[in-house]
């Protein structure tokens, strides 16, 4: 997991220099045009909820964080699967504006505690 720290903490995606397509997670070639001429790009730190779910039946290791709010967030740059935090399940809606924040994930099965980007509701007046 430590191998991925920079990518997970900076929301790094890939941009295709051939066709311009931007995608996350990063890949070695473009899914649209197969070009290997791609570069890493930052996806930005805010976006909108495209769709979301509230997971009541957790997978092993996430029991104590349950229920989890998982969302697909469009940052303008690309879509990111993420957790929402600082918000109650019934306050989330499609189209909600959110911004990135660093939080800890569940301990992995081998005892590592990864820090990852989650998203919280955008603060409008601060």
């Amino acid at each position, binding site marked *: *997991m430590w191998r*991925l720290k920079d990518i*997970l903490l900076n929301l790094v995606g890939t941009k295709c220099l051939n066709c311009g397509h931007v*995608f*996350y*997670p990063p*890949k070695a070639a473009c*899914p649209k045009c197969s070009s290997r001429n791609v570069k890493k790009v930052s996806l930005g730190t805010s976006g909108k909820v*495209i*769709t*979301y*779910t*509230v*997971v*009541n*039946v*957790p*997978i*092993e*290791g*996430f*029991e104590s*964080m349950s229920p*989890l709010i*998982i*969302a*697909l967030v469009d940052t303008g740059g*690309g*879509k*990111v*699967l*993420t*957790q929402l935090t600082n918000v109650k*399940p019934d306050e989330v809606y*499609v189209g909600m504006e959110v911004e990135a924040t660093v939080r800890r*994930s*569940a301990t*992995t099965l081998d005892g590592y505690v*990864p820090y*990852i980007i989650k998203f919280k509701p955008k603060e409008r007046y601060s």
Partner: protein
Amino acid sequence: MSKVYVVGVGMSNVGRFYERSLRDLAAEALFKAIDDSGNLTPEYVVVSNMLSSQAEQENLASLIADYCGLRGSSGFKVEAACGSGGAAVLVGYSLVASGLAKVVAVVGVEKLSERTTPEVARGLAYAADADFELPYGISFSGLNALVMRYYMMKYNVKREEMSAWPVLMHENGYYNPYAHLRMRITVDDVIKSPVIADPIRLLDSCPISDGAAAVILTSEELARKYNDTPVLIAGIGNALDSTDISSRYELDTFLASKLSAERAFKLAKLSPKDVDVAELHDAYSINGVVTLEDVGFAPKGMGAKLVAEGRFRIGDKPVINPSGGLKSRGHPVGATGVYQVCEVVMQLRGDFPGVKVGGEVGLTQNIGGVGSNITTIILRR
């Protein structure tokens, strides 16, 4: 391309069998299939399975072949998450069509009842992206829930309409003696069932099951010689999409469902309107509805609505999931794609022991991941 026939099928019951081992279930299915074929001896044993690593067992082809008296035969395991079974049948097809083998057994098996629900849920999430999705704790239900909410909003589909799918599945599965969950349910039952991953409810979800299924594949020459009711694999196709859901082009369609179906139809020189009976992969109601559209049985956005209007049940063309589908027959993960082929072959032969459809042309579609690895197979009497 040489023709390949299914000449034997065998299934164990689907359920939770605490007292039975993986090899025991596999042997039941394989022996039944061999007997059904007129006692052909497989040269290859291709095994499909997703999660035997949770029971610390790999090398399943050797384990199962030798347990069943086939020492010295050939084989290996094929894995494509929940789509392993369909992929393994494709491999078996290619072994026969290439001439490498005359008789191939494909054995799908899964045995998870010794693990806890969170363990199995974590295991199923190995079909997702371990680096970029697993750290968020997303479950397989959760990933499909993202698709379901998006689809329902985009096409203005009501909860009642989505619920028609599981009701139909249980109506069909009620008559299937192999099925895991043999009870009828109502739309009201679905809507009041507990929320697993909003908007997915318990009765939108398939059970995770133990089970094994096997088919015997052979060449035209042997098929005619040993069998009165060979069923032709007229078309077969597989397609991949991203493992992650973030980089998908569309959330309301499975690219790999479309592509694999197109490939299978092209090989078979047939089209969706020719299909009499199909087994689709409804791990969740939303998968059934979306692939109904992607295969070409319903216009985009209309899948759930057409089911709610009464389409796709016995008497219609095509009939969808007379087995009860994953929802009622159950989902013995790596075996599911092989169960589907057994069921459709029996429908075309006329000896399926549940809801009987008949007809000339059948289709199966087996999904791995959230639409990331899909195999479509077209069978013809």
